[in-house]
């Protein structure tokens, strides 16, 4: 359960270049639900995702995830919260191009300091699930778009998080890859993951399994 209550975010408060990114945003996402945050680019969707992921702190307001207030967590706990609860799929995947598939996938596990076998098992499971295991030693930059997409999702899910956050996941993708991504989302939805996608790609609009569509324009919920 994600509860966002009256979140405001002001960048450069009190300065000449002050910008209000979010204004009084409140919504909630129930466990296992899929919610779409839509709106044109620059409307504050990504900022909102960053706040839900505890990457950014709101200027005011509260974010609760499973009853835990995450808005004011110090870095140590915010990171731990992300590592344990959040799977992040970035715009353009954001793989580290010079690392191998395996190294990209274990990226979230490295600071956990788990035993080697455990890390390797988790990575293997996730890579197999998204059928990328056969390429595990290839460099990310040598992969095709579809393969990169699968690595990105394998990385997001390697920790088996409850919540998936995706930021413009289909921007710059061709139709085929976009449909692929939708299939993955469908699958994750059927696994009862809580999913929040920020996008302006119409492919996500009016889908039968989407629980809610929230529109954000210029930092204000419509």
């Amino acid at each position, binding site marked *: 359960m994600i509860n966002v209550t009256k979140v405001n975010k002001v960048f450069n408060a009190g300065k000449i270049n002050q910008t209000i990114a979010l204004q009084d945003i409140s919504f909630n996402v129930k466990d296992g639900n899929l919610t779409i945050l839509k709106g044109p680019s620059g409307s504050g969707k990504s900022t909102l995702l960053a706040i839900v992921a505890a*990457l950014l702190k709101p200027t005011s307001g509260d974010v609760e995830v499973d009853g835990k207030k995450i808005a004011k967590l110090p870095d140590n706990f915010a*990171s*731990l919260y992300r590592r344990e609860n959040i799977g992040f799929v970035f715009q353009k995947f954001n793989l580290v191009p010079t690392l191998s598939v395996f190294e990209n996938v274990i990226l979230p596990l*490295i600071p956990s300091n788990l035993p*080697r076998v455990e890390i390797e098992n988790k990575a293997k499971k996730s890579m197999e699930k998204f059928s990328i295991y056969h390429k595990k030693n290839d460099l990310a930059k040598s992969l095709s778009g579809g393969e990169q997409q699968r690595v990105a999702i394998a990385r997001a899910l390697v920790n088996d998080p409850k919540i998936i956050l995706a930021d413009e996941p289909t921007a710059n993708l061709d139709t085929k890859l976009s449909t692929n991504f939708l299939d993955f989302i469908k699958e994750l939805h059927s696994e009862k993951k809580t999913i929040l996608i920020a996008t302006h790609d119409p492919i996500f609009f009016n889908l039968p399994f989407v629980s809610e569509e929230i529109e954000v324009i210029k930092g204000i919920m419509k």
Partner: protein
Amino acid sequence: MKQLFNLFLFEYALSSLKRRGAKNIFILIIFFILIFLLSCVFFISNSIKYELNLTLKSLPDIVMQKLQAGRVQNLNIDRISKIANIPGVSEVTPRVWGYYYFKNAGVNFSVVGVSRFSPNYKKSIQKIVNKFDKKIFDKSDTMIVGDGVKKTLEKNYYNKYFDFIEPNGGFKKVYIAGTFKGATSLESNDIILLSNKNARKIFGMKNNEATDITLRVPNPKEVAKIASKLELMYPDSRMITKNDLKISYNNIFDYKSGIFLAMFIIVLFTFFIIIYDKASGLSSDEKREIGVQKAVGWKIGDVILQKFYEASIISVVSFFLAIMFAIFYVYILDAPLIRDIFTGYSILKPAFKLPFIVDFQTIILIFFATVPLYLAATIIPSWVAATLEADEVIR
């Protein structure tokens, strides 16, 4: 279960270094060169120090000088028998020596009196004396000169003899009975050996006077005691022990490497500005990578630790490579070029192999002079990188 040491993080740091190879190899090479230079200087100075200490061993254990108004005066040789009676003293030798200024050539010669009966204080001189018939020195008017001295004399038309000017204005004609080639060019160009009697005459000393007295004390632990005893017996005199000389020589060399170290540190600081600059100028790729790391759950501390591992790897690898190369360069190749830093070196002994003296304390010293400085230079850039706004990458 948590592991004691995060090997994956370490591997990640290693791969991060490899992935930005060009930049890191550049830093590694510069750091390597700096440590290499420093190590060479320390190794060479250690070797020379070692060699010097060996030379010092052949010197007398105690030299007694008489002082008057803080200046060294000639002393009376009466005291010899009294000194020889001190338990622990095995040999007492009066020395007659000094400098003679040869005006025409504008040079100073060392005039050293030798005696047929008593052994000489310096092994190299004893060797020369042994080579010649000892009777030469007893004949009243002969001397043996270094071949460099001989050349200087010939240039001034003194081919067979030389006229020393005595302090009272009279001339003392001394014939050249032979030449020798000194162990060092300094010796050859400088030394004139003649009998004690003649030396006294040239310096205007009385027959019962000597420049100083040397003592041999077989048990090194007794040296200090005997020296203080002598100081009590002869309050007008100063005792210089071999150990005193050793300390001042060591001081000179520590001083020399200290000055080098000081200059080196200035260079090192310049280097750190480069490091600081390199480390803080993050490329957009690096920024994105750190953003991804933090977005997937890396703590600020994890990123700082990764950067710390990177800095440690670079500095420790450079350190060990540099030490190994320096050992090779100094002890196998005999340190061409760099050993000229020690200008006294060529005079000291022109042709000799640097003895192999690598000790842990030198290596530890070099470690502390370099690696912590490098790490210090990376602290702030690492922190800046680790606290980058992660949300920027996901926008």
